[in-house]
């Protein structure tokens, strides 16, 4: 895959370049700030960009804002945000355009190299991948919300795994269920959240968004 990296820490930037190259990916550009990221994306049209949220000059959310503008210009542009902290507000803003192809992972996840690369691939393919920690905090912050009140404990678990971007098969093996019962839970969740079957929207993403909206 052709990858753009935006990361202001030299150690991590070089480490990521090395890692991705080692695993057969091509890092077409390594940006140090949001400005360089925008230029690199415009110049190289990468399959996916890995973007640090905190970058110069203010070290707050430059990476996130750059990602939002970039995706506003070209919807669906695959971006995997990469951060040392979880902030659910970030996730909400990122997912607000509902176009898929986004991810939000803690930097710690890079320790499980294959999982990390797998997440990057899924984002490049248009899926939504959220860090389990992000999802856990979303659950915590939406515990009292009405929209999710109707869900059973099991359904919440399944929705949580969906939010992490897992497929039904992966959820089934994770929860030791059959693929068929996962399918039933998912349908039930869609029903309770009022998401009718449709062709265009990715209902799984919409279901996750219900957390963020509620």
């Amino acid at each position, binding site marked *: 895959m052709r990858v753009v990296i935006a990361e202001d820490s030299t*150690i*991590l930037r070089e*480490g990521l370049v090395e890692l991705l190259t*080692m695993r057969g990916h091509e890092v077409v550009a390594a940006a140090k700030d949001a400005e360089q990221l925008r230029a690199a994306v415009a110049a190289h049209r990468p399959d996916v960009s890995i973007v640090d949220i905190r970058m110069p000059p203010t*070290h707050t959310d430059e990476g996130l804002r750059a990602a939002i503008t970039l995706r506003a210009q070209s919807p669906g542009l695959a971006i995997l945000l990469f951060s*040392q902290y979880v902030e659910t507000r970030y996730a909400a803003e990122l997912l607000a355009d509902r176009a898929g192809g986004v991810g939000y992972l803690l930097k*710690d996840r*890079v*320790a499980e190299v294959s999982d990390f690369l797998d997440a990057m691939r899924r984002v490049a393919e248009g899926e939504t991948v959220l860090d389990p920690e992000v999802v856990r905090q979303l659950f915590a912050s939406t515990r009292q919300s009405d929209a999710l009140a109707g869900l059973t404990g099991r359904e919440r678990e399944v929705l949580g795994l969906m939010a992490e971007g897992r497929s039904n098969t992966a959820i089934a093996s994770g929860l030791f269920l059959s693929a068929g019962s996962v399918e039933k839970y998912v349908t039930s969740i869609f029903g309770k959240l009022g998401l009718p079957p449709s062709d265009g929207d990715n209902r799984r993403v919409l279901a996750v968004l219900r957390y963020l909206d509620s």
Partner: protein
Amino acid sequence: MKADARLRDLLRLVLATPLRRRFRAELAWVLVGVPSHLLVLLPLLLATAIGIGLTPIFLGFLLLGATVFWARALGGMYRGLARRLLGVRIVAPARRELRPGLWNWVRARAGDPSGWRVMAYVLVGLPLVLAELVVAGMLLLYGLSLLTYPVTWFMFDDRGAPVFDIYSRNWLLTPAFALLGLVVLLATPWILHALLGLDRLLAVGLLGPSTLSERVRDLEQSRATAVEDATVKLRRIERDLHDGAQARLVAVAMKLGAAKEEFEAERLDVELLHGLVNSAHDNAKQALVELRDLARGIHPPALDAGLGVALSTLASTSAGDVRLRVDLPRRPPPSIETIVYFSAAELVTNAAKYGGPGPIGVEVTVTGRALRLAVSDSGEGGASLSPGGGLAGLADRVRTVDGRLEVDSPAGGPTVISVEIPLPT
């Protein structure tokens, strides 16, 4: 023997006092005081009177505000004079907080008690300093006339000096007059010094921040500084952690993760594994260094063993040639030790950066009820407490423990920056 020594000391004290700097400075105070009070008092009174007269129209308030503001600035001048000539250090009253708007300006300025108190100071100070001038002049004249009387006796036809009714028919008595003159001259500095005690009281009472409300405002400001300082410090620590050790550890985990998966491959690429583990090892060591530096920045472990130990550690790791002298009869409280340590660290860093190649002097002593830190260098001088500068920030932080920072840095050097912090009794 002992009595001899004591007598000698007393004699030296009595004889040397007229020649000492203190007497000259106090004489200068009296001489400068009269014209400076006069020059200032007239325009002040005039402007105040016109200002009050014009209060029916807004201009009066404006003039009044400007006058009080000016008086306040004059307070700074008098404080400087008092410090240099009387040897009393008076803390400037707290700045008024200004809200935008002309009317707010006028209200804050015209209602500034420290400005009005400077006016009162000038008003009361003028007759006082005038009286002191007269007394000092008379004493000196009287003493000199008496002292020279044995010589001048021959010059006067009627044998009487033209001042103070000094008269002796017989020359043989004149040495007694001269002796009396000597006594008067020797006593003059002491009399003047005692008189100037009134000036000191007046200056301390009216030029410093004495009212309770100002003290409260001062405390509020320094508390705000303390809180802000803590916030800034915490943010810096978070940044340092985020950019340093945390990033290093992510890199370590990444390299080790890659190595772990490499072990599961069919054929081991030893060279690749070696590179990954090496690089993870380097990053882990670097993270340790960064964590240690960070921990030291939060609280230097050497400080637990006392300021002296901590400062000698600081001196040995500093870029410059630091000459350290610590003379503390007992350990100050930890909060003061900490602030003195970090002040010294910042000042030594500054001195090493701007102070030229010469040695940097660091002195910690106790003077009276205050701890004094002085950092000196032999650089080009010209350091100042400009608002927003590093020294001003340090001064603000020192103020949180009621301390103050003074800069003595004439062009061409040398620079001495001193921090004085009151010790709890």
